[in-house]
């Protein structure tokens, strides 16, 4: 384990310190400072192109997979800067799981979808039990207990997304990142996923990007509002920044920033 000498408060699990992310010469977000509390659900909201998904993907080094993407600053997880050269991104992703915008089950059976991640992570216990408990936590067990050997694709979109959540839970991460997990789903599936998230909150820290402000209001304890503006030194394009972060109640009832007020009341975005 690589330790840095920086001290973070005990209940802060993840913290961004002066993070700027660029794609090639294009700067996506600039100077983000943000702390994520353990056991909280934190929503990242903001208009399109403000870099909230970029920030989310940077939290478990998914951005590594995008060519030309570079990050400046520190992302401290468990006292370690995950962008330190000595850090293995595979290990980071094992401890910080991710659920994507589009449901993306493996082209394997429902059972294998969950067993795959656990197995490669060196799981040696009772696999049947793990599959069942993961599916239960993701509120999918009752719907698919009789067809565990069917293809993951045989499920509906909402069920597939819950399967992806179950798959992420199965590797027992400390944090679960969700990138607009409900944007491809109908309202009923969305509601089920939100119920699942409330259940998961007991054991996991969740960070979710959402376009749906009602959803942020419903599920999250903390809300971070990202915005994009043109900087004078920039090349004319808009650059994202973290405008305001506070408890969800405060963000929606008494935001400090004028832009936050305008965004949540639907004036732009």
């Amino acid at each position, binding site marked *: 384990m690589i330790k840095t000498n920086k001290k973070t408060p005990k209940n802060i699990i993840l913290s961004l310190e002066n993070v700027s992310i660029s794609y090639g010469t294009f700067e996506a977000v600039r100077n983000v400072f943000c702390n994520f509390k353990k056991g909280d659900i934190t929503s990242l909201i903001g208009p399109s192109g403000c870099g909230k998904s970029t920030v989310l993907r940077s939290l478990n080094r998914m951005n590594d997979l995008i060519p030309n993407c570079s990050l400046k600053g520190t992302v401290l997880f468990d006292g370690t800067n995950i962008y330190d050269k000595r850090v293995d991104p595979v290990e980071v992703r094992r401890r910080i799981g991710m659920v994507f915008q589009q449901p*993306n089950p493996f082209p394997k059976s429902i059972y294998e979808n969950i067993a795959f991640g656990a197995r490669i992570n060196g799981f040696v216990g009772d696999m049947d039990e793990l599959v069942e408990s993961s599916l239960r936590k993701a509120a999918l067990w009752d719907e698919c207990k009789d067809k565990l050997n069917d293809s993951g694709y045989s499920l509906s979109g909402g069920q597939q997304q819950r399967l992806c959540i179950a798959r992420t839970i199965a590797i027992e991460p400390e944090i679960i990142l969700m990138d607009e997990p409900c944007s491809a789903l109908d309202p009923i599936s969305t509601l089920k996923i939100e119920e699942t998230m409330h259940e998961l909150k007991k054991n996991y820290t969740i960070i979710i990007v959402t376009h749906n402000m009602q959803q942020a209001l419903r599920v999250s304890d903390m809300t971070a509002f990202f915005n994009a503006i043109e900087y004078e030194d920039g090349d004319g394009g808009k650059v994202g920044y973290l405008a305001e972060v506070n408890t969800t109640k405060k963000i929606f009832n008494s935001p400090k920033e004028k832009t936050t007020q305008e965004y949540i009341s639907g004036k732009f975005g």
Partner: protein
Amino acid sequence: MNSLYYQKRLSRNIGDTFFTSLSVICALIAILPLIFLVTYILIKGGSQITPELFTLEPNPPGDDLDAGGINPALIGTLIITTIASIIAIPVGVGGGIYLAEYSKGGAFSRFIRFGVNVLAGVPSIIAGVFIYALIVSTKILFGSMYSGLAGGMALSILMLPTVIKTTDEGLKLVPNELRYASLGVGASMYTTILKVTLPSAIRSIATGVVLGIARAAGETAPLIFTALFSYYYITGFGDLFYEMGSLAVLIYNFALEPYDAQNKLAWAASFILVLSILSVNIFSRILAAFTEKTKRV
């Protein structure tokens, strides 16, 4: 006022009919060679098929009326193609994996892609001459000169571009979401490729491999310089290091003989070769159709 009804004699309609018929005729002419070739070989060669054909050695031309069979050539083609596959499939699939999964589109991968395209266009005789210079004339393979092994190497050069290209393209068709899913649950790049992306692309890769084999199995020019020809049964492992017969070279040799018996044997061999290449091609189409069906699931 013009009538709304279709009028044949209108100049635009005459022109239209003319060009439609012209293109249909061209299409028919284009397919004619294949139809004639296949029927001609089926008639000429099909009538020569006997059980002995598959079991006997070919007789040296001239000494009697019976030409014998094509057993050594048939087995030789199988062996040489297998050797070519053993070399070309791992290297080709590995190269394709590098291009599709690891390379980031830099100068090196662009150079490889360009090189593969050039290699695909290299005349097959050049591959033969190259292996002749490298292996045969130098006796580098345990002192043997012309050999089945050298023949397989020459054919592997011809298979390589097809295998690399289809692997590359097959892997590129695998949606990125699937890679993210695997990496997102903490899989390494190696596990992701081996357990997730490769299995998803396996059928299109298999199609490419089969097409590569079909192309290599019918080549003559590279074998004349490398495997040469043999009249004798292949009896053991050691025969790999000596001259080896193949269907294509048998056809080349015997079609040029002045004797009728040998010519007939060449027709019979053509029949077997065309039939097997045709069926391998059809097999690859079935494989490809199967791929598309499973993708929609």
